[in-house]
């Protein structure tokens, strides 16, 4: 560490008194941001540029990448597995985000209006503390066709067993459900934090006017929460598109391709077939989708905020 120079400078500035703020700390600042800057440039900026570059190459990791123009993108456009993966991912995101948002909104409102005890928030957050891998393992067992307690409960109430993770129509809803289980508490706490910013006086006033709890939810909570809800949606949707762990553990993309989400296909192409160029091109496509969604949502949420004011 180059601490000696600044130290001497400090001593001098002490003698001068008065203007310690005006000085220029460039050297010290460089030393202070150096590790973070290296991390940022080497592991974020450079990989981003390199990922875009690799998407225009043929690259198997062993020999240097060969530039092949837009070949990867042409291949992507006509690859039915890619489009299937896109469709499956979208279906997953819609189910995952739909259920999670509604459920977490209800839980958050309950946590605010019913009781604000910390233990309750702790309980709701507990599933978030385990990894996706653990969540996938547990539900693989609970929803097992033969032995799972889930199917035993279904039989108990007189329903048919469901092949949750092994049938093509149930697998994506089930994966979506598993991830809702893990993330709903976290999302609810984010929304809860947003609810705390709504002044209690709004509710008091509405109550004096005889408004019901449901009416207050519609006329106070939802409009005032809208900007935060939009932000929560951006965060959760971007996360939802990156689904991988649950699929990798519980279904491996199956049955056939019915749970082969985009990220799993990318991983498969890169590490199963060593086609890093093509995998990178699909990553770029995913990146573009995420950027468009973020941009659109950001615009929409901004419009909402200005509507309110």
């Amino acid at each position: 560490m180059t601490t000696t120079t600044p130290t001497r400078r400090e001593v001098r500035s002490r003698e001068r008194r008065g203007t310690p703020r005006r000085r220029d700390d460039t050297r010290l600042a460089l030393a202070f941001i150096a590790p973070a800057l290296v991390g940022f440039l080497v592991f974020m900026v450079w990989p981003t540029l390199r990922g875009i570059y690799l998407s225009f190459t043929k690259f198997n990791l062993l020999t240097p990448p060969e530039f092949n123009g837009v070949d990867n993108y042409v291949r992507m456009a006509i690859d039915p597995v890619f489009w299937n993966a896109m469709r499956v991912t979208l279906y997953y995101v819609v189910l995952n985000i739909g259920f999670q948002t509604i459920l977490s909104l209800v839980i958050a409102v309950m946590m605010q209006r019913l009781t604000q005890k910390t233990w309750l928030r702790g309980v709701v957050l507990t599933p978030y503390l385990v990894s996706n891998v653990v969540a996938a393992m547990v539900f693989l067992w609970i929803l097992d066709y033969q032995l799972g307690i889930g199917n035993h409960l279904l039989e108990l109430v007189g329903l048919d067993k469901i092949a949750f993770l092994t049938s093509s129509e149930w697998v994506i809803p089930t994966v979506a459900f598993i991830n809702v289980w893990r993330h709903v508490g976290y999302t609810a706490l984010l929304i809860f934090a947003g609810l705390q910013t709504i002044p209690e006086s709004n509710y008091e006033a509405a109550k004096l006017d005889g408004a019901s709890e449901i009416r207050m939810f519609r006329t106070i909570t939802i409009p005032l929460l809208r900007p935060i809800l939009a932000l929560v949606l951006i965060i959760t949707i971007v996360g939802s598109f990156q689904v991988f762990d649950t699929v990798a553990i519980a279904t491996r993309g199956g049955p056939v391709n019915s749970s082969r989400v985009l990220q799993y296909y990318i991983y498969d192409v890169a590490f199963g077939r060593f086609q890093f160029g093509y995998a990178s091109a699909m990553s770029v496509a995913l990146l573009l989708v995420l950027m468009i969604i973020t941009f659109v949502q950001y615009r929409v949420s901004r419009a909402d905020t200005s509507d309110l004011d």
Partner: protein
Amino acid sequence: MATATTPPVTPDTAVRDRDDVPHATPRRFRPGRAVAWAFMILVILASLFPFYWMLRTALSSNNALYAGADNLLPVQPSLGGFQRVFGLQTGQEAIDAGGAGQAINFWHYLVNSVVVATLITVGQVFFSAMAAYAFARLHWRHRDKVFLFFLGGLMIPAIFTFLPNFVLIKQLGLVDTLLGIALPGMLMTPFAVFFLRQFFLGISREVEEAALMDGASKVRVFFQLILPMSAAPIATLGILTYIASWNDYFWPLMVSYTDRSRVLTVALGVFKSQTPQTGPDWSGLIAATLVAALPMLILFMVFAKRIVNSIGFSGIK
């Protein structure tokens, strides 16, 4: 956040409150309240039942699980599952119980996970704090531009940098090492820098300037004043970072090929894929799952309040 639980104590509401419930704010909504509580109890059950079910399964004998699948208590209680997870059973015993019969030792993966999560947490929080201090308090040219540039990093989803980062880690010869897993997260995340900068900006300048007047260097001010004064947010960030890196799966899966660098999440996936397709060793698998989850659950029990209250938009905006 402390204000959240305090009910408004206007004399007006106190008079109108004819409820026996002493600390809840008065609300009309009686039958609805019962329904709401019923819903919350369902949510609580759904949140916690899988944890109980893990414990129950891990403590059952695997072969008895088939007959007693709907038994709510452990079936033929046994520690066999845990013994297999920690490599304490001979191969034949493990095969008889439906296991893969391969020697596995989760201690090793546990240690790997601790090393990786600690490297990432200590490095990321410390280096991000240094950068955050430079952005919050030091005076240098282009400071705000560089900061905006850093913030741009928030836009890049982690998933996009994984493939090229793997290529880089491979070129550095760090594939299948713990350092290779930890390195990309060890130096900073834009969020950590942003989060800590917000707190540093809130620290009163007067204390800092008094110290400078007394001849302390800015380096000393950072280590002996700023860091101790922000112990709370730093601890919060550290705990959240630790949990996130402990639970990470995709990146360690890419980097580690052998036991040498396998962390718990990856090992769990391998353990699962090794288990026989027909009649898998569920009690062993679930015991391993519990072992992988337990450290974070204990951490949560210790720091529950801090973790629960840290989730919000205080840092993000």
